[in-house]
């Protein structure tokens, strides 16, 4: 299972970077989304996958056993997912506004901020 998740994480990172390097505005946002998922899945996998071992101290014991499911990475992911959701929602609205104003989804045509002619205004 860890191996499968590791491959999935790698694929998500690769896909995210690939999409971000495309020229399309929409693919860029999709790339950001995939990268966020990749980071979350990475933390989840790194937390150590065990089955049926909740982090409770058994009756009569003083401390946890050798192996237990670590709840902290999942708490981290939960936080990161919430933040990522907000950011992605903002991103989608932003590209909509940009598309309305620039009338193109091609990142190579968004040169208003850099082209010398525009800066002379």
């Amino acid at each position: 299972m860890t191996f499968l998740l590791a491959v999935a994480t790698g694929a998500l990172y690769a896909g995210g970077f690939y999409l971000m390097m495309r020229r399309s505005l929409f693919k860029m946002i999709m790339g950001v989304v995939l990268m966020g998922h990749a980071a979350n899945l990475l933390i989840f996998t790194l937390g150590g996958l065990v089955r049926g071992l909740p982090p409770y101290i058994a009756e009569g014991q003083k401390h946890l056993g050798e192996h237990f499911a670590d709840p902290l990475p999942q708490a981290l992911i939960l936080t990161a997912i919430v933040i990522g959701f907000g950011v992605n929602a903002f991103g989608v609205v932003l590209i909509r506004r940009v598309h309305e104003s620039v009338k193109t989804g091609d990142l190579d045509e968004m040169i208003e901020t850099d082209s010398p002619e525009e800066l002379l205004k």
Partner: protein
Amino acid sequence: MNLCLLFPILIPMTTGIVALFFWNHLRIQRIISILGGAGLFGSGIYLLLCLLDGGIPTVQIGGWPAPFGITLAADPLSVVMVLLTGTVGLAVSVQSLTGIDSRREAFGYYPLLHIMLMGVCGAFLTGDIFNLFVWFEVMLFASFVLLELGGERAQLEGTVKYLALNLVASSLFLSAVGLLYSAAGTLNMAHLAQRIPEIDHQIFPQAMAMLFIVAFGLKAAIFPFFFWLPASYHTPPGPVAAIFAGLLTKVGVYSLIRVFTLFFPGSSDMLLFLAGLTLVSGCLIALVQTHVRRVFSFLLVGHIGYMIMGLGLFTPLALAGAIFYLIHDIVDITALFLISGLIQKIAGTESIDRIRGLYRSHPFLALLFLVPALSLSGIPPFSGFWGKLILIRAGLEAKAYVLVGAGLVAAFLTLWVLSALWSDLFWRPEKPDEAAKADQLPEEERGWKGFGAEVALYGPVAGLALITLLLGIFAEPVYGLCRMAAGHLLDPSAYIGAVLGGNP
């Protein structure tokens, strides 16, 4: 319980929330914003007094003992940064009164400004690496909206670039945090500092260090990662750009300093290499720009190199120099960007070719421009001179001659760029027809006019210029504080002890 640690976070938060309640009452929002800025500045001073009084203050949030809960801790570096956040926050909130048009004010400019300040202060004060990520996101979110507020075409395009690069940095940072947790089993920075040297793996620490360089380097805009900055910082109004340039990039520098002194101590060739290239490339590209604020943006990038140089050399002198330079740079760059906003307001453009002879109509502005410009170029008696002197001496002591050369070249280039810019803007003779046109330019709509408005426009810049002069004249006590902060960074045992207390 050290309440002094909570004020720098609670004051901007309260300010932001209370300002939200007065959405339709701009006058009240303005008053609240000024009070919040002043309160933040006051809380910075209070925090400094706390530190000088009784060692490093710490708070365990919710009473959970470290390393299990979230810790807030303020070592001298954090305190200095919070104090500077207060200074810049106050200056920017005063200039926003007239520097921001009422259309932007009406859409929640003041709440956003203060929520962003809360994120910045939180990032400086937290002692938990995941919490640092959360504060980064708080700060970024407010900054996305601030950058885009107003919805002009250039602003929207700038925001796309800013958003994309910052989100890449955030997800790399998050991945690095996850990897660190899996290897060290803790998120508390002081605890991590103890655990990381115990990790028995050949390349793991290097890989981590590299991830942090890329993640924070993107935010700090160091050499290969800086292209988003000049593409976005010249699009929003002056005060917004000023707080972005003055503070947000420095949060990245602060995080680099924090991570590389606690987790990966030692001189780093990689950082030195990037520092040298940042210094030269930033200042060289600034030479060929045709837009006032883009000149400043590239100079800002170039001068980040000095701080990275101090961090990379990793001697007591170099780190003290890096912190001195950080203080100088925040004050100076904020002043320069505020001035660029003023020029934009007066001339209606920031294209260097189209602005001439401002000296005739605005001699005071010419003087104000000159102070931070000379300071940034490293002319005594201003603060930039001492910062560069300390760093270059540290470089010579460490026999990093190439890097020292890069530092000197960058200083000369800065002087060249800024003096050329000054004479272009202020001394070039006006074309007769343009001078007549300039007189007829309609005054831009703003909240209030008259003497008070002039004070609100020029006062913050004058204050920051005065601070950079005072930092230069009273360099000795400031250097003492930097030396103390560097001492704490080189030997973090006091920080670790204060955070972990009796339970390591």
